Structure formats: structure tokens, C-alpha cells
């Protein structure tokens, strides 16, 4: 690994990892500011989806990447947020309040789901969250008086201080501002003792506990917080889609979110953004590619699924740190140019820890 000389404790918790990054973030900010003036509606709506998925990804990243808890049911929180938002806005509740309600309700549900996480872990937790996700999807489908069931639910456009934010270019600002706020919240949270407790739990539950970290409290908090953030993403998602139906919040959506986090890079907030961009851009690239492939492969409906499956397999096998990890490697290569060795950043292989003993 690369070593960074630190002469001050504050260096450990700087918002930007190291000096010299600020100009790049300014450039990114300018690009994002210019986007609605340059892009047409279609591309802007794709960018909206990227921002929304990035928020959801940041939420899941907090749980999976930083607390080390695996959830196969996160689409349920996206759904809880989306349906809460849709129903409340329809009832005439002002937009900021309904979004807050979506976050709070998702957090409550998340805390309840977090409870099994206190007793079980690893694969058992994955299956518990999977079961929860499937149950919630069924609830969306059956609770017709509220969710409209399989018939779907139309979502009114968001209104803020009497201004409609329904148009794609106005909604973009809403999504962008929410995304920045959420990201700042999470990045700052990770600098606090709470965030460090999450990371400690991920790295070793036993040592975290012996350091005085209340596992039950922090695991539940992580679940609730992650669910709240995904709920906010869900609220935006509802407006972006304008039409909700239960199958949008099923197991495949949960897997998509997980794929986003893994492909982007576990354990890095930037990874959520890269993953979100991948998740939205990949289908577009694939459909562009279809014309160049031989007919049988190019026109097959399963192409996207095959490519996604392959990407996940290849990423896990050859780049466990995800696309962001690859970027870090390339950056490090250029930083250390003459003395970079192959395998400099390779993780040590450890024998698999048995989960039967618990």
C-alpha cells in the first residue's frame, strides 16, 4: 500500500482526502451545473436517474461497504420511500415534508429489519433481508387501497413554494441538490466517531466490541440510516418515474443496487457514483453495441443480463475493489511512476473465517 505522511490528527478526517483534489471537484461541479443547459431532455433524465441511483448507492454503501452488513432487500426501502412520497404528495402534503416522511418511515422499517442483524450475520442476514424484501414487494402488490396494487400508482409532480418541479430540467436541480446534501451527510458521518464505529464493526466485530462499541446500537443505526437515505432516493425515484408498480421494487432491483455498490467499489463513497453511472449507462452502451454484433447475439433479449452477469463475475474475481479501486490503482501508478511494482496493492489472502462458529 501507499503511505501518506501525516503530521496532524486533523489530516485523518479531512473532507477531501488530500490536497490537490479540490480543483477536480470544482471542475465536476461546473460540469454538473452546465448539464441542464447543454443536454437535451432525454440525456438529462438519464442523468437524473444516475443521481437518484447514486443516492441509493451511497445509502447501501453505508451499510454494505462501511458497516459490512449485506442486504439483499434494499429495493424494499426504495419502495417504501417511493410509495410514501407518492401517497403524501397526492394528499397535498408539501414536498419537503413528504420527503422527510419518506426518510423517517424508511428509517423505522430499516430499524425493524436491522433487529435480526443483531442475531444473525453473513449469509443468514442476506437471506433474512431477502425474505423481508420479498414480503414488502408482496405488500405493495396487495395493499391496493394505498399502493394501487399491480395496477400501479400515478405520482403527481413535486411542488416547491408553488413552483412545479415536474419538468426534467427543474427536477434535475432537486435531484442534484439532494444528492450533494446526502453525500456530504454521509462523508461527514464517516469522519465522526459513529462512522468510525461502523468501519470498526466491518473490520472485526469482536475487536469493535472490545473497544466498547455497542454492536446492537450501531448495527441498527446503520440499517436505519441506510434505509432513510435509500428512502430519500425512493422519493425522488417516484417523481422521476411518475408511475409506480410493485415489480419495480422486487428482488431484481435489490440485486441491481447491490451490483451498483460492488461494481462501483465497496468501501468508497465515490464507488456509489461510478456504480450508478455504470448501471444507467451500461444498458445504453449495450443497445448501441447491438447493431455491431452478429444478428443472433445482437438481437437477443438476454444480452443485457449476460453482460451484467459477466461484469459482476469479472469485477469480483479480478477487481474486488470495484471500478473505483481500479482508478485508484491507475492513479497510484502515475504518482509513484518509477517505483510502482506489480502487486503493490494486492490484498493478502486469508483463510476463510468460519461463520459456523458464532
Amino acid at each position, binding site marked *: 500500500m501507499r503511505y501518506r505522511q501525516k503530521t496532524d490528527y486533523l489530516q485523518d478526517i479531512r473532507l477531501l482526502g488530500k490536497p490537490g483534489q479540490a480543483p477536480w471537484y470544482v471542475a465536476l461541479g461546473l460540469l454538473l451545473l452546465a448539464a441542464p443547459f447543454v443536454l437535451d431532455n432525454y440525456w438529462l433524465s438519464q442523468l437524473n436517474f444516475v443521481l437518484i441511483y447514486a443516492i441509493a448507492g451511497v445509502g447501501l454503501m453505508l451499510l454494505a461497504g462501511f458497516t459490512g452488513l449485506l442486504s439483499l432487500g434494499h429495493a424494499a426501502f426504495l419502495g417504501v420511500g417511493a410509495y410514501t412520497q407518492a401517497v403524501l404528495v397526492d394528499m397535498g402534503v408539501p414536498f419537503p415534508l413528504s420527503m422527510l416522511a419518506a426518510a423517517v418511515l424508511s428509517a423505522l422499517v430499516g430499524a425493524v429489519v436491522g433487529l435480526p442483524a443483531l442475531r444473525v450475520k*453473513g449469509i443468514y442476514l442476506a437471506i433474512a433481508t431477502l425474505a423481508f424484501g*420479498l414480503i414488502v414487494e408482496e405488500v405493495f402488490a396487495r395493499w391496493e387501497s394505498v399502493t394501487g396494487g399491480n395496477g400501479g400508482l400515478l405520482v403527481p409532480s413535486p411542488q416547491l413554494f408553488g413552483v412545479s418541479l415536474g419538468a426534467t430540467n427543474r427536477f434535475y436541480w432537486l435531484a442534484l441538490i439532494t444528492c450533494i446534501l446526502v453525500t456530504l451527510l454521509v462523508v461527514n458521518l464517516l469522519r465522526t466517531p459513529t462512522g468510525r464505529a461502523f468501519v470498526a464493526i466491518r473490520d472485526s466485530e469482536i475487536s469493535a466490541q472490545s473497544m466498547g462499541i455497542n454492536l446492537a446500537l450501531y448495527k441498527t443505526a446503520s440499517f436505519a440510516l441506510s434505509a432513510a437515505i435509500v428512502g430519500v432516493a425512493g422519493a425522488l425515484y417516484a417523481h422521476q418515474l411518475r408511475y409506480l408498480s410493485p415489480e419495480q421494487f422486487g428482488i431484481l432491483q435489490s440485486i441491481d443496487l*447491490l451490483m451498483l455498490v460492488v461494481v462501483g467499489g*465497496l468501501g468508497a463513497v465515490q464507488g456509489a457514483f461510478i456504480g450508478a453511472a455504470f448501471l444507467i449507462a451500461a444498458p445504453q452502451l449495450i443497445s448501441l453495441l447491438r447493431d455491431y454484433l452478429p444478428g443472433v447475439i445482437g438481437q*437477443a433479449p*438476454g444480452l443485457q*443480463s*449476460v453482460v451484467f452477469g459477466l461484469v459482476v463475475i469479472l469485477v469480483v474475481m479480478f477487481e474486488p475493489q470495484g471500478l473505483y479501486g481500479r482508478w485508484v490503482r491507475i492513479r497510484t501508478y502515475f504518482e509513484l511512476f518509477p517505483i510502482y511494482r506489480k502487486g503493490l496493492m494486492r490484498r493478502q489472502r486469508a483463510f476463510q473465517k468460519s461463520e*459456523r*462458529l458464532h
Partner: protein
Amino acid sequence: MAIIQVLVSGIALGCVYALIALGFVLIYKATETVNFAQGELMMLGAMLCVILMRVMGLPFWMAAMASVVAMAGVGALTERVMIRPVLGQPQFAIIMLTIGFGYLARGAVTMIPDIGTDTTAIEAPWRGEIWEVGGIVLGAEQGYIILATALLCGALFLLFRYTLLGIAMQASSQNQIAAYYVGIPVKRLNTLVWALSALVATVAGLLIAPITFVHANMGFIGLKAFPAAIVGGFGSLPGAVIGGLVIGLVEALAGFYLPEGFKDIAPYVVVLIMLAVRPTGLFGESLGKKV
């Protein structure tokens, strides 16, 4: 009488879950990883049989045999190519790998012209037959599922109890490193276990095909086998069978007594209760951990 009928069909359904759960448990016991693509292996096996029968015109039994053998090969290959290189990484990695494999399998199958996007029936010789035992009507499809599950469980029991291979598998499932030190080829055994698990999955796929038909998404039934494995205890072969039966019965009874919609979620409610009450399952081993 109606209730007995419901119970019997619940048992038949439970046997399918049990067969898929057996595949999970075999892999979990040996390698402590979970194959989220078990349902997809089942789908691939059934699809292969359909292709062999349709395209090559093989009779059912020959096609079934060929696809069982071929799928064992696929299972072994999967372990060798995909799982072995990531051993030693967190479990999360293997879960994602098998999820990715599931995606790949589903997509690849729909790419097969004509058959891939179709819902096909396997023309099993017993299809449509009806058995009547003491007033209870039993479709031959269900009867064969119960019979085959019993046979397969018996075979696995004999394998683990009386053969050197099975005992070696048990040893490596208890402690891989210790097993390796006493000269058991743990890596080769893992490959074998994956082959065995794919074989069991294919048998499940062939048995269920006359009831649910064969299509690219039939693997999602594998999700119902997780509750079975959890209820029985994830590391226990008899547990998988009992768990499968419990889940099958719960589902059948929920379908009979409860309003519509509860049937599909009943297994998951059971699993959540089970995890809250007794996370190790009915037959799970519970061992203390030393720091």
C-alpha cells in the same frame, strides 16, 4: 378429505424445495459458501433436457441422463473457474459471484433461438397419469417427486455414511485445513461437491418441469429453497429435507386457509420467525466461539 389432499400436494411441493435446498446444504457444508444460482442450475438442467429432446430427438430417459451428467460437469467447471480463485475472500464475494452467474445463466438461456424465450413442457412419460391411493388422488408428477426425493436422500445418506469419499467430505466440511493436513484432497472434493449439487439441482429441475414447465425464469423457485435450508439448519442434510417439507406444507396450508397473497410470502414469514427464534435452524449445529 380436502385437507389430506392439500397436505399431500404440500409434501410434493416441499420435496422440490428440499431437493434444491439439498444442493445449497451440500455446498454450504463442504465449502461454507452459498450458491445463489442453485435455482439457475436447476433451470439450466431442465433446459438442456428440453433441447436434447427437441433438437436431437432423444427419448426422455436418455435426455434426462445426459443432462444430469452434463450439468454435473457444469457444476464442477463453475467451481473450478469461478469459485476457487476467490476462496479466502469474504463470503460477500462468493454471494455476488453466484448472483452474477445466475444473471449470466438466465440471459444466456434467453439467447437460445426459439426455445430460450419459450415456455416448454417436458414430455415426461408419466405426465398426466393419476395415481389413486385409498381415495387420495395423486398426480404422477407429484408422486415421482416424492419418490425421487426419497431415493436421492437415501443415496446421499449411504454416500456420506459408508463410502470413503463421503467420510472425506464430512471431514473436510468440519475443518478444511485439518482435512488437508491428513491428506484429503480438499480442493478436488470441493469441485466434486459442486458437481453433486448441480446434479441434485438438475434432478429437481427435471422433476418439477412437468408441473411448472420450463422457462428461463423458473430458477426463481430456488428463492423458496432458502427458507427450507434455514428452517432445517443450513449445515444439515436431513435438515434440508425436513425444512423443505415444512415450507411446502406451510405454503400449501396458507394457500388453503389464508386469503390470497399469503401463500407466496408464508415461507418468508416462517424464515424470519425462525431466524428470530432459533437462527441455527431445527438441526443446526451450535458451537461456541473462542476469540
